[in-house]
């Protein structure tokens, strides 16, 4: 059922790719900052 409508779901997910990418980048930056602070 869900796979039959994969085109629809994938299109919906495509809308949120920028925000997901942005949140991943923010998360990575946040972890790097914490490591730098604890290391230095």
């Amino acid at each position, binding site marked *: 059922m869900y796979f039959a*409508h994969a085109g*629809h779901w994938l*299109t*919906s997910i*495509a*809308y*949120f*790719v*920028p*925000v997901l990418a*942005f*949140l991943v980048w*923010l998360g990575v*930056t*946040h972890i790097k900052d914490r490591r730098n602070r604890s290391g230095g």
Partner: protein
Amino acid sequence: MITLFAHAGGLIGRSDLPIPEWLFGWAAAIVLVISFVALAVLWPEPRLERARWRPLPGLLGRVPASRPVEILCGAIGVALLGLVIYAGLRGTQSPAANFAPTFVFVLFWIGLVPVSVIFGDVFRAFNPWRAVGRAVGWAAGRVVRNGLPAPLQYPERLGHWPAAVGVFAFAVLELVISGGDKPETVAIATLVYSALTFVAMALYGVEAWSARGETYSVYFNLFSRISPFETRDRVLGLRPPLSGLAHLKAGAGTAPLLAVMLGSVTFDGAGEAPLWTGIAPDLSKFFENLGLSPQPAFEMAFLVGLTAAVLLVYGFYRLGVAGARSVGGGFDAATLSRAFALSLVPIALAYVMAHYFTYLLFRGQAIGFLVSDPLGDGSDLFGTATKQIDYGLIGATATWYWQVAFVVLGHAAGLTLAHDRALALYDDAKLAVRSQYWMLAVMVGFTSLALWLLSQANT
């Protein structure tokens, strides 16, 4: 909900576009990132916080805000309130043929939003509850020998919570209650709201309640702060657009109020998405199994959906606030939440305009024939009763471009406000910019959500 006034975004079919709709979302995100970089480089000091107000010269400044004009506008507001109640109770119970539902849900709730953004706080002058409250206060002051007792101090902890509850209640009437657009229901809701408002005004004073607690005053005032027009001491003047928001006193309930404003539009848009249409019947069945009959179970499912949409929006905003807090500066989450709440106002504007654009344009035309036949009884007071709605006013493709423009401009304005506030809040400009990485994520998130919702409505 299956009512005439829900599914407002679906008045227009899918547009024929040169690229997929989701690519517009990506382009909008890129525009926001570029705007963010430009702000960081070209906007090094808080400008909106320090913006100046200048009075308009002569009669241009004094007449629009004068007492006679205010009394006239208040009288028009009271007459319209009376017409809504009378038409709702005495007119036809067909929502489309009665003046009350179209006036309340289309012209008032949606139409006054762009009017407030362009011309300023127009509703303050036309506010029927404020007009009646002031008139009663004036008359009572003359009749009672020692004057009326001073009103209670408006409790700070209440803040904008009454308005948040009011907007939520309006959304429940519009999107949850079956037959919420029935003229009689609209009239009774208006009467109940009027009674509650008069009691609150008697307790806390007309101006204090209008400024902080009265739902529609607060709702339209928030949008009017985007406008370049502002009245001070009965003089109309000019200020830079958006600067009114920089002076907004956000308090308890301000961020939740904006979450309700955004969440209710989100739910209205998501109501047409397969995601919700797949969940709603199961949720409704769940409430039926708890012993509710089908209609209340269906309404409970929609109430859960509306609440979830509001909480989702609020949660995402608080995530951005928590991220901004993590960069340092020593502010607690509540302070940051209030400080950046102003940035949600242009986003709420973008959501309202993008989602209800065609609805306002098409359904708003109905007022042309409803003024001639407000009760739907066949009368023709102004000779316009036979007018029709012109659905060819705007095409699907043009509508999509307008919607994208509203979304991008609204979010760019939100970003600008958040950047300006961060510069005023943080001592270190670098820290201010870093705190805004998270607000940028919030803006990109709301942009993606807005365009996805619109795509669902266009399906």
